[in-house]
């Protein structure tokens, strides 16, 4: 019996599904995503969404894993830098981290401590760009091995009919 899993990973532009045999090793996820992303599975790590630590590739797959989004990437960690109003902050995240988690850190008191009135209107864009990134995207989407750095700009989100455009 196969298990269908939702995955993101290096070289993938969107969440996708893969099928792996129930009872096989988690390494099968790595192999399947590496084939889609066109890289060597031996170099890659497997993560659960929003986790900074990889999971053991010998872990036996069961149906409970189908309820979580996984991520496969050759970078173990990504050095993130966020720019805002001439300053920048840095922190290291796992590649399965969603953009929303980076944004929460950037607006919080360990980041730029954005005024609570405008904090809900902030978004992240790739550095030098102006389009807000999807909050559910894994940051590993935007990094290709052997690079392991990623820079964002903290921007004010669009308010249609509002004053921010």
């Amino acid at each position, binding site marked *: 019996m196969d298990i269908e899993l939702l995955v993101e990973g290096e070289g993938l532009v969107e969440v996708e599904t893969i099928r792996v045999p129930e009872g096989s090793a988690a390494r099968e996820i790595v192999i399947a995503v590496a084939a889609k992303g066109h890289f060597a599975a031996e170099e890659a790590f497997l993560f659960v969404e929003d986790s900074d630590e990889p999971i053991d590739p010998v872990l036996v797959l069961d149906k409970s894993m189908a309820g979580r989004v996984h991520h496969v990437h050759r970078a173990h960690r990504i050095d993130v830098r966020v720019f805002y109003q001439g300053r920048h902050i840095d922190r290291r995240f796992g590649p399965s981290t969603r953009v929303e988690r980076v944004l929460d850190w950037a607006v919080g008191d360990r980041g730029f401590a954005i005024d609570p009135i405008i904090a809900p209107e902030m978004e992240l864009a790739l550095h030098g760009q102006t389009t807000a990134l999807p909050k559910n995207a894994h940051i590993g989407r935007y990094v290709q091995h052997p690079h392991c750095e990623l820079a964002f700009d903290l921007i004010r989100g669009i308010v*249609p*009919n509002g004053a921010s455009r």
Partner: protein
Amino acid sequence: MSEQSPAERAVAVDLDSPRFRAGVHRGHWRLLSHTFPILLVAVAAIEPDGNQREYSFRFELTGFPGVAPEVRKWDLSTNTLQAAERRPKGSTRVSEAFKAWGGGTVYRPWDRLAGAHGNWATNYPTLAWNPKRDLAFVLEDLYGLLTSNSAAQRVRTSA
């Protein structure tokens, strides 16, 4: 047995897509009912006081995806448009998106009625509807708006 229309098939494909299912797995939204062309979806929200809740939306999907969805904030108990005073609250972006306006729909460029006014398709291309969009695009935008209060909470609670 009646054949599915192209729009009905497109909606079915979307509801089975990895993007839609990922949102369900994450607890960001859940399907309430679907009888084409009407789709009801509940989307998770965080209120200004930090409490979690859900808001329901009614999608009218005739002509999908060539025609943009018509999306209304919906009151399931009365099966009518939700009263303005019971709509989501938060930043300017939230209050603008869910305000009562002439069209009665969610006031975002991807909505069929909102997107057709004010030259929004040109002014806001990253939020405007086009046939390559999917239901998850709309739901991700709604979820982002409805949970944006968490950012203010994060600053307040850690200050």
